[in-house]
């Protein structure tokens, strides 16, 4: 190697001008990734908002604000993942027979991989953690989470993973392997570019963030419930989060280790999953699904929790079968770990293995069904208000049940041999994740928006968005079931015209376009609601006649959450208090301990991002720098002995009275 080449490879690793995007569409994506942050920065400068951003958001350790940031990032990523869909669906609608469509094969595969990765890790997980941050402390009557600094670190690691995925649009490429990057395709020999490395390292940082967040919320729920709230009095959302976080705590380490082993294969030449040298790629598939199946229930459990709250509020009835709901969650948590092989029935295991996992998979549908019936029984004879959160629930029941039955069908191994990796499977899991998780998140955003921001969202546009989503979604995914039966496989960038698939692909693309319109209406809904916020102001703090503790606070929730420690003696504590017109002896105000802001969480995640980027491009000196930043910052933070401050009782009283007066509340 010449001196200059050696110099460049030391300082820049594999990075060079060749890393810039090759095609026009890719240039367009790259410019967006540069222009959007630039535009935001410009806007902040023009409006002199940098200081505000730093003090109110970037350094905050308040779970309510961290929750809002999670949701903003996730919604932004929903748009990015949606742009991927636009390309995928256009390609598939066009590329029959002699028409090659608009994308090259490798670019198409990268887009599909990015779509799946982003939607699961940065949209579904982001919305979920956002809601958990907003709601769990409030619902258990706590002012904070157990480890506020760790919580901010989790968020910024999630953010760092998101940034890394998007950097791949500008420098280098992304994995073209599918969202779970099976070897041997994802091994260095078959994927020599940095794409798979981007995938590995963004999931490593985001995944560690999730793991830390799970530990945090487990401790918060187990240790910080307000006095009087024993386990069987917790709101159902809190129960579902407890289940989901248990799954994260036990499943995410598997993901971290599996990705590390793949990275070792790629970077230092080990043979864990290679076809040669004694490796076994089926071990990767086995491990990734030992995480992957729990992961789908990690996403759906909090969604179940949201619907439990929504259904009982809008039926004005207590949740039907609370204990059976709890046992259903417990059963799902355990069974989630005993079904993973249903994702690779076709690998060639014996009928004993396949039969066992097939039956376990069918069994997991039972507790899920119990929950569906409980919600329906809650609605039965309730005093129902058809507000848009309940519409999302009804859409969910229809879609989720169809998708669930498709799942049970594929739980039969011989049937799965036909349907595996077909578009039928793609329809199944989109019905579960979009119809289940995403619909729940929309219901939750509509339902809790006034609590966080102090005004309701526009209901008319919300309903319109729901109907467009429902129609667009069915139009987009029902054809995929049919195409799956006709033999169309997933991630298909081109097919023969004689197969007669094109009409169905076109219908599906039209459905996706209608979903695009639905998202447009939702953006409009936010804009209109913000514009009309005075008219939609929630002065009561309890706009929906709610049941759990968060509705006992004024809207928007003050930074100290509860002026006085709430009192709980029953399930649906706030509802019972309202019914009994509780005029118990007025409690005195007390000093409140709160956590100070800190920029260090951001620094830790910044260090992790630098480390990950450097490893992707083999810039080893920079990787060491990144790692040192992380370690030094953790030590620095541990030395800080003044992380909290006290808000005096008299100050709490002054603020609380001001809030009550502004809201017209008379307590």
């Amino acid at each position, binding site marked *: 190697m010449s001196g200059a080449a050696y110099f460049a490879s030391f300082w820049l690793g594999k990075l060079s001008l060749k890393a810039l995007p090759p095609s026009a569409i890719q240039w367009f994506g790259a410019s967006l990734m540069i222009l959007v942050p630039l535009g935001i920065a410009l806007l902040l400068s023009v409006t002199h908002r940098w200081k505000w951003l730093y003090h109110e958001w970037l350094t905050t350790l308040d779970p309510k604000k961290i929750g809002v940031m999670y949701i903003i990032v996730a919604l932004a990523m929903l748009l990015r993942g949606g742009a991927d869909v636009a390309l995928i669906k256009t390609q598939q609608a066009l590329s029959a027979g002699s028409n090659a469509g608009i994308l090259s094969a490798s670019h198409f595969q990268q887009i599909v991989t990015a779509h799946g990765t982003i939607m699961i890790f940065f949209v579904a997980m982001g919305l979920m953690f956002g809601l958990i941050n907003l709601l769990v402390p409030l619902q258990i009557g706590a002012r904070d989470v157990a480890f506020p600094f760790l919580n901010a670190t989790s968020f910024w690691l999630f953010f760092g993973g998101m940034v890394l995925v998007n950097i791949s649009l500008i420098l280098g490429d992304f994995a073209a392997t599918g969202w779970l990057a099976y070897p041997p395709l994802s091994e260095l020999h078959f994927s020599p570019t940095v794409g798979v490395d981007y995938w590995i390292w963004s999931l490593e940082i985001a995944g560690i963030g999730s793991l830390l967040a799970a530990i945090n919320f487990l401790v918060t729920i187990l240790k910080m419930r307000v006095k009087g709230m024993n386990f069987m009095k917790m709101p159902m959302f809190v129960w579902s989060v407890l289940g989901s976080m248990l799954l994260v705590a036990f499943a995410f380490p598997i993901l971290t280790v599996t990705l590390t082993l793949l990275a070792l294969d790629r970077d230092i030449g080990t043979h864990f999953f290679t076809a*040669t040298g004694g490796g076994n790629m089926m071990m990767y598939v086995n491990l990734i699904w030992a995480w992957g199946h729990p992961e789908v229930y990690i996403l759906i459990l909090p969604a179940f929790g949201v619907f439990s709250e929504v259904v009982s509020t809008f039926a004005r009835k207590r949740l039907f079968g609370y204990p059976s709901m709890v046992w259903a969650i417990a059963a799902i948590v355990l069974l989630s770990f005993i079904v993973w092989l249903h994702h690779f029935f076709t690998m060639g295991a014996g009928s004993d293995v396949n039969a066992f996992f097939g039956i376990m998979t069918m069994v997991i549908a039972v507790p899920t069904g119990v929950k569906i019936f409980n919600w329906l029984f809650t609605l039965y004879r309730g005093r129902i208000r058809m507000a848009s959160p309940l519409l999302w629930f009804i859409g969910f029941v229809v879609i989720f049940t169809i998708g669930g039955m498709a799942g049970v069908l594929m739980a039969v191994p011989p049937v799965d041999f036909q349907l595996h990796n077909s578009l039928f499977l793609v329809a199944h899991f989109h019905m579960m994740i979009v119809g289940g998780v995403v619909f729940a998140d929309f219901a939750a955003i509509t339902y809790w928006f006034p609590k966080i921001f102090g005004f309701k969202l526009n209901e008319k546009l919300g309903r319109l968005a729901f109907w467009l989503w429902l129609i667009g979604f069915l139009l987009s995914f029902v054809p995929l079931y049919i195409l799956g039966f006709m033999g169309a496989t997933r991630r298909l960038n081109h097919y023969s015209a004689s197969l007669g698939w094109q009409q169905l692909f076109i219908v599906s693309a039209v459905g996706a376009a209608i979903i695009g319109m639905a998202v447009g209406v939702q953006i409009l809904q936010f804009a209109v609601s913000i514009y009309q916020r005075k008219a939609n102001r929630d002065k009561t703090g309890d706009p929906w006649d709610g049941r759990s503790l968060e509705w006992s606070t004024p809207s928007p929730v003050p930074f100290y959450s509860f002026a006085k420690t709430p009192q709980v003696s029953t399930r649906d504590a706030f509802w019972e208090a309202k019914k009994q017109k509780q005029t118990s002896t007025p409690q005195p105000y007390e000093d409140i301990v709160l956590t100070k802001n800190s920029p260090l969480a951001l620094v830790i995640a910044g260090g992790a991002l630098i480390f990950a980027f450097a490893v992707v491009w083999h810039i080893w000196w920079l990787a060491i720098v990144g790692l040192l930043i992380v370690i030094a910052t953790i030590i620095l933070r541990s030395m800080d002995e003044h992380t909290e*401050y006290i808000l*005096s009782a008299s100050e709490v009283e002054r603020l609380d009275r001001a809030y009550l007066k502004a809201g017209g509340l008379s307590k």
Partner: protein
Amino acid sequence: MSANDTAKARDVSYDVLVSAHQPENVSLRGYVIGFIASIILTLSAYLLTRHGGMSKGVLVVLLSGLAFSQFIVQLIYFLHIGKEFAPRLKLMMLAFMLTVVIILVGGSLWIMNNLSHRMNMPSVQQMTNYMKSQDNL
């Protein structure tokens, strides 16, 4: 209104606030012992595989033993199992963890053994030769 603007907010010293919650029995010494023991156990696994020169069967037993010891070391020194009176919740967590570990390890062994038996898995050398003939690796 942000937390930091609040004029009357007071700083609290760490000692006053946290010392009350600090569990006893947890010392720096324990963490250091656990850390060093974990590193030794991991390194010995690596060295045994690379330079041990023993038969496959013996190696599997030894590595499993090392993994299990590390499991115990971490439970004792990092998670402080057995240091305090175990309330029911902690016992349940421990039981759940053991269940999951047994399911995952046992299940993976069952699945992968079943697979290599049924696929009549070739030896490492045969497999490497085959792959080389398929694709100039």
